[in-house]
């Protein structure tokens, strides 16, 4: 998908030049992204493990929904309290649904999960963070994205545009073990002009506790 996005960026440059030129809004809309734009389209973020980088952008107060655990899996210590931690890279006899496709050559389970306290995540510097703050873990290696997330640009915030907001955790959108965003089934297309009489009904579908009504068409 990286490749795809990058190509889009390039495709658009010509059109953008046209489009951007005229518009001076009352707010300076043209200030480029720091570090120069143009060639940063589609760049792959180098993993930067720097605590310094993060402190440049202080953490706002962050509330999030609960971590999206599978049912019954948490607390992990319900099993792991009685299990010897095993840092060996191996085929697991449990958690077999987990396939690690995330910087796999360099990393294994206990780089992120704490060996001693399985209910906690573990940062590179050995610090523990709870699953409710898993963004701290992701932020170690994805600094720029983390900063954009804090500013409300990467990822999503709901709530009040003026007041209190709720952030989605990185793991609400990215499976931490195979983080590439998974394709979705699109909602129905609008009725074509010749099919305007084919709307049979609208039915509710619930997405993240929100019900939306989508059309059902005659065949």
């Amino acid at each position: 998908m990286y490749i795809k996005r990058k190509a889009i960026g390039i495709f658009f440059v010509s059109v953008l030049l046209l489009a951007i030129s005229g518009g001076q809004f009352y707010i300076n809309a043209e200030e480029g992204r720091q570090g120069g734009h143009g060639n940063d389209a589609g760049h792959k973020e180098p993993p930067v493990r720097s605590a310094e980088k993060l402190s440049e952008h202080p953490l706002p107060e962050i509330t999030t929904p609960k971590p999206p655990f599978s049912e019954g899996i948490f607390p992990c210590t319900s099993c792991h309290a009685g299990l010897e931690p095993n840092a060996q890279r191996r085929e697991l006899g449990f958690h077999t649904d987990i396939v690690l496709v995330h910087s796999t050559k360099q990393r294994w389970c206990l780089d992120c999960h704490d060996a001693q306290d399985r209910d906690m995540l573990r940062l590179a510097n050995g610090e523990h963070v709870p699953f409710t703050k898993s963004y701290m873990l992701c932020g170690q290696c994805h600094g720029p994205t983390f900063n954009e997330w804090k500013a409300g640009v990467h990822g999503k915030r709901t709530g009040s545009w003026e007041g209190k907001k709720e952030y989605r955790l990185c793991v609400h959108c990215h499976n931490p073990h195979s983080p590439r965003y998974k394709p979705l089934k699109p909602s129905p297309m609008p009725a074509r002009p010749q099919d305007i009489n084919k709307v049979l009904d609208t039915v509710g579908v619930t997405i993240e506790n929100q019900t939306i009504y989508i059309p059902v068409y005659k065949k």
Partner: protein
Amino acid sequence: MDRRKFIKSMAVGAAATAVPLNQSDASFFDTFFQKYYREMTKEEKEEVVQRLEAEYKAKYGKDIKVGTEEHIPGVLFGYALDLSRCIGCRRCVYACVTENNQSRNPQIHYIQVLRFRRGTSEGEHWIAGASGVSNLEESVKYYDPPLVPQEEHFYMPVQCQQCENPPCVKACPTQATYKTRDGIVVVDYNWCIGCRYCMAACPYDARKLNWAEPYIPKEQINPVTHYLGNRPRMKGCVEKCFFCIQRVRAKERRYPACVEICPVGARKFGNLLDPSSEIRYIMAHERVFRLKEELNTSPKFFYFFSI
């Protein structure tokens, strides 16, 4: 020219079809001679709201609240959409239909999601191009694969661009459509005569006419509404996106429905006058552009590529 004079000056037959009313309704007289919302006193608004609420109760069998929240001082609403993230899933389209009580049949959508194929000029006129109303090519709007995003494609949702310099407002002979002080372009449906001049004037194809009586199943009505927003509409009036005025002006200051539903977080909304808002962050840090910039409509709807 005021509304009544305008109607008079039109051919009688044409005017009759354009009057957006259910003529059998007892409140026909009140409705027809209702004042222009923008000029109403608080008391007059209150009266109109009560009449409408009673009408809606009779029609839909439930309590529908019609709000009249004013603009918020010091606020100018702006919107930004991250084209690097949009996957074309259309959830925004139906979150909007649901929140804003659009007619299900005939179908009215405020948001059109356009699909572009990389390396072709498919749909390019949407971005630049000074043509008036664009003819949407079928391939651009009617895609239906099992999964999105598709390789080699990207997606661009288009809705009312909330122009600072709105051609629709200039075209409207009755001033039924106007720009409010928080920047939202609204329609006073009771004042709209359905002449569709605004639709012809809009370069973004954002305005939709109720050419038949709108239909919404009673149980699907959203009962929290605003006079200038999602209150139930009638045959013959034009409507379009109004930034979910009933949500954004509410005391909770909620985000628009399309922002909240977007699974990838591509949609951003906030106060352009507040330097700490996410919308201002985007203006300062991303390469933003606007559709058909050369038309000088000056939209408050921005597009950007975060990568």
